[in-house]
């Protein structure tokens, strides 16, 4: 699987309490002890925001009536910060005003609990928020993954591409993109049937995952086409990686058609560290696609790579045979 953090779903959820009153910390510490959560606490909004960024809790309990940075301000800050934006927040307040409730929900709180706490109610609300956040997390992970290959899907690729592109441009990091396409895939489907074709897609996906690093982003781009985003990887390194994938694929023996090897072709375009990136993310992908086309023209089972400025890379690009 791609870098999906499933272990996070199984671990004891961390709940962050932000409240200026030591009484409330003490009370909830005792009253939520029987829940399978780990409660951590801060006494003001600023420290709470920092702690939330550090610990990425599954839920935040936020007091509204705090001196200095009040609850609404803290809530706004938590929702403005990308690293804490998606953490569900239950607002705690001693003021039972409907205006406060409306404001809290408008600012993105998921629930509102009035002090003094009705403890069974508080426990139930904590439990339901945690359950909701687990389900949402699972859903968003599921929505990013292609069912057959287990790689990221196309929709996710577009998003990740933009993110990695921005990072490379901003920091002057190296980055490479590879388009990978199976050779004569249609004939596998036609000769051995679609289940055999599916097995090849899943198998090649495993090869790609196995050969790439955990920081690489492997996606299923279309039918038999894959795309690999390789952050902090120059085109020479990317070329070598794709060669390994190509060789592994060529030498794999398939259970459904042991006498029929499967090959793939790849087009790589990369930027060295510090080299200017003057094209858009989608133009970059198109350039990789043109190299893929050239690889196909060169007879397939070939990796063709170039620099983002169009110049050739330093490795001998002999066709393996």
């Amino acid at each position: 699987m791609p870098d999906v953090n499933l272990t996070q779903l199984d671990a004891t959820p961390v709940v962050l309490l932000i409240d200026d009153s030591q009484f409330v910390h003490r009370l909830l510490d005792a009253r939520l002890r029987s829940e399978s959560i780990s409660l951590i606490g801060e006494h003001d909004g600023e420290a709470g925001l920092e702690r939330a960024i550090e610990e990425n809790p599954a839920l935040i309990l936020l007091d509204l009536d705090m001196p200095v940075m009040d609850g609404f301000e803290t809530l706004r800050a938590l929702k403005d910060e990308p690293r804490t934006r998606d953490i569900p927040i239950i607002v705690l307040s001693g003021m039972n005003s409907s205006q406060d409730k409306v404001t809290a929900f408008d600012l993105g709180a998921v629930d509102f609990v009035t002090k003094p706490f009705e403890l069974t109610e508080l426990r139930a609300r904590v439990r339901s928020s945690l359950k909701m956040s687990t389900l949402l997390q699972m859903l968003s992970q599921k929505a990013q993954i292609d069912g057959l290959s287990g790689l990221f899907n196309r929709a996710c690729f577009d998003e990740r591409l933009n993110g990695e592109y921005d990072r490379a441009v901003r920091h002057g990091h190296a980055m490479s993109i590879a388009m990978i396409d199976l050779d004569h895939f249609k004939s596998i489907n036609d000769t051995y049937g679609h289940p055999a074709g599916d097995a090849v897609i899943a198998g090649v996906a495993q090869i790609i995952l196995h050969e790439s690093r955990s920081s690489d982003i492997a996606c299923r781009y279309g039918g038999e086409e894959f795309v690999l985003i390789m952050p902090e990887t120059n085109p020479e390194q990317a070329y070598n990686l794709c060669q390994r994938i190509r060789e592994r694929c060529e030498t794999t023996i398939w259970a459904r058609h042991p006498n029929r090897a499967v090959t793939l072709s790849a087009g790589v375009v990369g930027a060295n560290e510090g080299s200017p990136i003057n094209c858009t993310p989608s133009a970059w992908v198109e350039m990789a696609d043109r190299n893929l086309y050239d690889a196909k023209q060169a007879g397939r089972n070939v990796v063709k790579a170039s620099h983002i400025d169009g110049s050739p890379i330093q490795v001998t690009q002999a066709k393996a045979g």
Partner: protein
Amino acid sequence: MNAPDPNAFSLDVNDPEDAELIEYFLGELPEKVSAIASALTGEDIKELGRIAHQLKGAAPGFGFPAIGSAADQLEGSIRELDGTVASMKSVQEEVESLLSLCQSYITPKS
């Protein structure tokens, strides 16, 4: 309003978790009492309001609903302060009744 029963614990002293909370609250109470007293002497209305608000929210959870409602009364009176002598007097009275209620829970050190 009837005087709240100072012994009306809504928690069970025989339950270890409840007992722990009661003990903690009683341990903190003298400090709160002196904070209220000095806020009153120093006419620090803001601080007085803050303590009242905290007690209102917390005391019932620790088994002291009477302190919670006295603090609620005080918070209400502070909110209604309008500079008149009558409103000042009402705050003063609320503080005194909160203080004497708190005092009634504090066992004198022998």
